[in-house]
């Protein structure tokens, strides 16, 4: 009997520090993440590699996504791998214009530093990648990076 009486007297856990905890998590996410700048319309799983380097200046990087269209777009675009530039599916021929547009957004001094990151699904065939590479050469965007996930080796 006495015990149950004791139980009743246990005070509720103070929630005064809850906001602080949540704020800490919030700040962690604010610092370690970046804004989503575009909706990715292709599904891709990056290959693994051990010798990856971090891309230094984010504003100098333009992305080319290559992969199978996401499920709700498959009805219209099929399941063959597609190239995504900005927010739409494009073909390799549009890369020249895309690079020119991206280059125009940069400062004159930064243009030589521009990097193109190729984010391609690991099941893609090299044919489409080679087409992209050829177009990039033609557009004189020679610095590229094959996006990969850092792994411990195999």
């Amino acid at each position, binding site marked *: 009997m006495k015990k149950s009486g004791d139980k009743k007297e246990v005070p509720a856990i103070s929630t005064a520090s809850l906001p602080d905890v949540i704020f800490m998590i919030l700040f962690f996410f604010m610092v370690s993440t970046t804004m989503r700048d575009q909706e990715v319309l292709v599904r891709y799983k990056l290959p693994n590699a051990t010798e990856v380097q971090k891309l230094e200046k984010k504003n100098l990087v333009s992305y080319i996504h290559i992969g199978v269209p996401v499920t709700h777009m498959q009805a219209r675009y099929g399941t063959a791998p597609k190239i995504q530039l900005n927010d739409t599916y494009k073909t390799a021929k549009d890369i020249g214009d895309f690079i020119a547009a991206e280059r125009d957004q940069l400062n004159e001094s930064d243009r030589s530093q521009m990097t193109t990151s190729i984010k391609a699904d690991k099941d893609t065939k090299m044919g489409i990648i080679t087409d992209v590479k050829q177009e990039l050469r033609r557009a004189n965007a*020679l610095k590229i990076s094959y*996006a990969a996930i850092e792994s411990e080796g195999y």
Partner: protein
Amino acid sequence: MALNKRKTPEVRADSQADIAFLLLIFFLVATTMNTDKGISRVLPPIPPEDVKVEDQKQKERNVLLVFVNGAGQLMVADETMDIRQLKDKAKEFVLNVNDDESLPEKEDEEIEMPDGSKWVYPVSKGVISLQTTRDTGYETYIMVQNELTRVFNEIREDVSMQKFGKPFSELDEAERKVVTTAVPQKISEAEPRKAIKK
């Protein structure tokens, strides 16, 4: 006055958690983790049309041909090979420790050190040529690229240890430039086979 101030009720703090939660959820949804890592490469510029391709022909001993077919099989210098052997083979090719006749030539180059002195290092003239077909898988390609990058990274690491006594990652920019000049990353990414044979 003083009485009034004392009567001002405290701002309620219980909703602070809810506000923080809202902000947290907003950031969880609207942002992505920074996972931008990749294998960096510099593509060769397209040669002007009036330059003949023959001019760029390399001596046979200076080229290591790595060919990956559609089934993911690897052929290195006319023999099939497992990807695990590729790194050692390529390293042997680039270093050419015993100055073998069949392995690439080296050319003594004067490299300017950060302190102003000159350093002569035999720079290998070897080029690794990576060829694929159009139906080679991207994953295999990246694995091969990764192995080749590892070759150069390991050699740079060794040179850096010998010359500066510290790993490549701890060098400053000027020292790093010395090492990269001594060990240039010469990986040629040719167009796929079919396009060449045409």
